[in-house]
């Protein structure tokens, strides 16, 4: 190796590094939305539509309304590849790189959420883990900066049980329910709730962990389909695990109508690879499906019509809509905080106030061009879940459609569970609970 060349390479590298640490220029009237995405890696098929939906909605606000009350929106992405240490690195990189303080972070992975909760607490940043992350972060007294809106995994498990109970004619006594789950922090979340409900409702509950990434499920499904023969199967899967499970369920002849996935097992990327065998498969959702909302027309007109936008083919996908949902939450929090602090770029702390007082009513959803897109959400100091609801959607081979009414989780039973879990966390980590009186 020519040492002179090596020296040049090293020098070039050193110069680059020098460039990186230069502080970003500050301009006042831009609100900065950092976005942790995964457009690469094993879960990219799920990550891409979400990232597109998030940035499309926010950038559409710039084009259609000139920003949020005149404050322009800036979106910066960093690719985590769904990898926890990359997620931490991205968070550290993005938190200081915008033109204003970061509005909020969507870690978009339960593992990354866990890794960021305490960092964000120390830095004064906000985390919105909508439909993932720590369920007990719904207790705003212990987690003033984390928001689980609109609904947690525990509430999702509760809603699934409510749905199947209604389908079974009001009682689950003597029924058999199986849970097929990704053997990770994410997949284990519903177990405690389902076990508690098993005692209350009288069904027998069995668990089937699937090792990451979930391509090998033959034995699991033979056991389910041939030996256990449950009445219902629930799934907490992610990525390629979902379509594999659907294929295997079909191959052992398990009826798809009795197979219900969580909202992360509910996208086009999960059912299309399974082909016709996926017809009839059900899953929970907490926001509307399809590209038929007025806001989609706005995005098409103001972004794609002008040659902008992140990816036209993903518009209206389930996960695209979920990205939009999160973007609405973020932009509405800013709007509400602007009502108190003035129409300018806000700090993270001011946005935190907006999130703590967030209210998106059913009427507001309609005003935003998304009638009946999601149920009304109302966050309070103590309740960071916001009493959201979910519904059951079903795949017919071409599209997802809504097949149940909105199901409100039984929060009177879930709330004490959140609070005791959060209290234990507070005790282990010496966190003083804030007073919400």
């Amino acid at each position, binding site marked *: *190796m020519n*040492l002179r060349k*090596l020296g040049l390479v090293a020098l070039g*590298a050193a110069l*680059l*590094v020098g*460039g*990186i*640490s230069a502080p970003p220029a500050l301009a006042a009237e831009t609100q900065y939305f950092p976005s942790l*995405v995964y*457009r*690469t*890696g094993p879960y*990219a098929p799920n990550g*891409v539509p979400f990232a597109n939906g998030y940035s499309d909605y926010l950038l559409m606000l710039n084009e259609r309304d000139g920003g949020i009350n005149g404050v322009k929106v800036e979106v910066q*992405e*960093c*690719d985590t*590849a769904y990898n*926890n*240490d990359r997620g*931490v*690195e991205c968070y*550290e*990189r993005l938190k*200081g*790189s915008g033109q204003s303080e970061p509005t909020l972070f969507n870690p978009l992975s*339960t*593992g990354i959420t*866990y*890794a960021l*909760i*305490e*960092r964000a*607490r*120390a830095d004064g940043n906000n985390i919105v883990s909508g439909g993932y992350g*720590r*369920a007990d972060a719904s207790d705003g007294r212990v987690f003033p900066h984390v928001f689980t809106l609109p609904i947690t995994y525990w509430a999702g498990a509760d809603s699934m049980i409510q749905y199947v109970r209604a389908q079974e004619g009001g009682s689950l006594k003597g029924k058999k329910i199986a849970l097929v789950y990704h*053997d*990770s*922090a*994410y997949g*284990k*979340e519903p*177990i*405690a709730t389902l076990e508690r409900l098993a005692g209350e409702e009288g069904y027998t509950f069995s668990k089937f962990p699937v090792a*990451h990434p979930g391509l090998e499920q033959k034995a699991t499904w033979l056991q389910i389909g041939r030996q256990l023969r449950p009445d219902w199967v629930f799934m907490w899967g992610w990525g390629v695990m979902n379509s594999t499970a659907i294929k295997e369920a079909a191959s052992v002849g398990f009826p798809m109508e009795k197979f219900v996935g969580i909202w992360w097992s509910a996208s086009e990327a999960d059912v299309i690879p399974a082909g016709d065998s996926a017809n009839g498969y059900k899953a929970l959702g907490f926001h509307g499906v399809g590209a038929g909302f007025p806001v989609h027309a706005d995005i098409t007109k103001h972004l794609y019509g002008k040659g902008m936008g992140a990816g036209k083919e993903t518009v209206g996908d389930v996960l695209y809509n979920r990205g939009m949902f999160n973007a609405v939450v973020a932009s509405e929090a800013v709007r509400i905080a602007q009502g108190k602090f003035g129409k300018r770029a806000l700090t993270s702390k001011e946005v935190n106030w907006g999130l703590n007082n967030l209210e998106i009513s059913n009427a507001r959803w309609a005003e935003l061009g998304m009638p009946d897109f999601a149920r009304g959400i109302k966050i309070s100091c103590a309740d960071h879940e916001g009493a959201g609801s979910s519904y059951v959607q079903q795949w017919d081979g071409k599209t997802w459609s809504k097949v149940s009414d909105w199901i409100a989780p039984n929060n009177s039973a879930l709330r004490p569970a959140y609070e005791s*879990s959060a209290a234990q*966390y507070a005790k*282990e*980590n*010496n*966190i003083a609970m804030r007073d919400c009186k």
Partner: protein
Amino acid sequence: MIYREAGQFKSSYGADQAIFPIRQDRIALVILLALAVVAVPLFAAPYWLETILVPFLVFSMAAIGLNLLTGYCGQLSLGTGGFMACGAFFAYKLSTAFPELHIVLVFLLSGLGTAFVGILFGIPSLRIKGFYLAVATLAAQFFLVWMFNKFPWWNNYSPSGVISAPPRALFGDIYLTGIQATPEIKYSFLLVFVAVMALVAKNLTRSRIGRTWMAIRDMDIAAEIIGIRPLVAKLSAFAISSFYIGISGALWAFIYTGSVEALAFDINRSFQVLFMIIIGGLGSILGSFLGAAFIVLLPILLSNAPTALGLEISVELISHMEFMIFGALIIFFLIVEPHGLARLWQIGKEKLRLWPFPY
């Protein structure tokens, strides 16, 4: 010209056997350490400390551990991730069960526990070698991660299986883990801790035990004939290597990420550390640091570079480019210098000693 050792006479065995026999090296080392101890925590941005230097130091520790086993003793291991998980979960159990235990003691004890696990999984090395041993250590990797995932006792029955490092002070009010810990404290502690452990490792390899490892590595039958007991040599290599790797796992969980699940220590982690020592240089403590720096810093540098240069490139393209450049660089290094960066460094030093009159 400045790098010349003419006139430096050694008048004792001690001076002759020093780790850095050349005076200029010693001066450079002192300057480097002074920079690292004083200047870096003072002037580096938190982003640098938190996401670049901290993981670099933690990985250096893991790489030193694996280098002792693979580079010095010649026992190929793919169980690094599993042993790191051991360290992390042992440390978690220890520090939650005995909150009054000092955090440094927790790290050392978790390393000790991992050393025993290492011995257990090192036993097959007495019978099998090379690829077959790699497969046996692969079993350790999968078994350990499975165990920590399977039994909720390990994570104190947390519903999600994630362990979070409890806040622990280094002394008094200076917290090393948890929310109150500042990046400066984390970095400074790791720097001192890893430097001391590296010094111990360096001296181990220069001592009797290190020489028996190298004899086993170079030819185990010959080593046995001249009186080295393979049992002691191989198992001590497994034990000490696992000790280092276990501590690095505990540091990873407690100081770097703050919370981990067992899946964070999957097979990819093992490969990552193995690549570090291959690129850095097998059988070299310096190589462990260089390899860790290469593997940790390069992807971050590559993903930061386009933004720093003001280029508008979409994130997915950056990610893909990063993979390609990284892969190409690894191949390049393996072709140009299969003995790793440490060997490059050594060649550079040799040339510098003769410069400007090479022969």
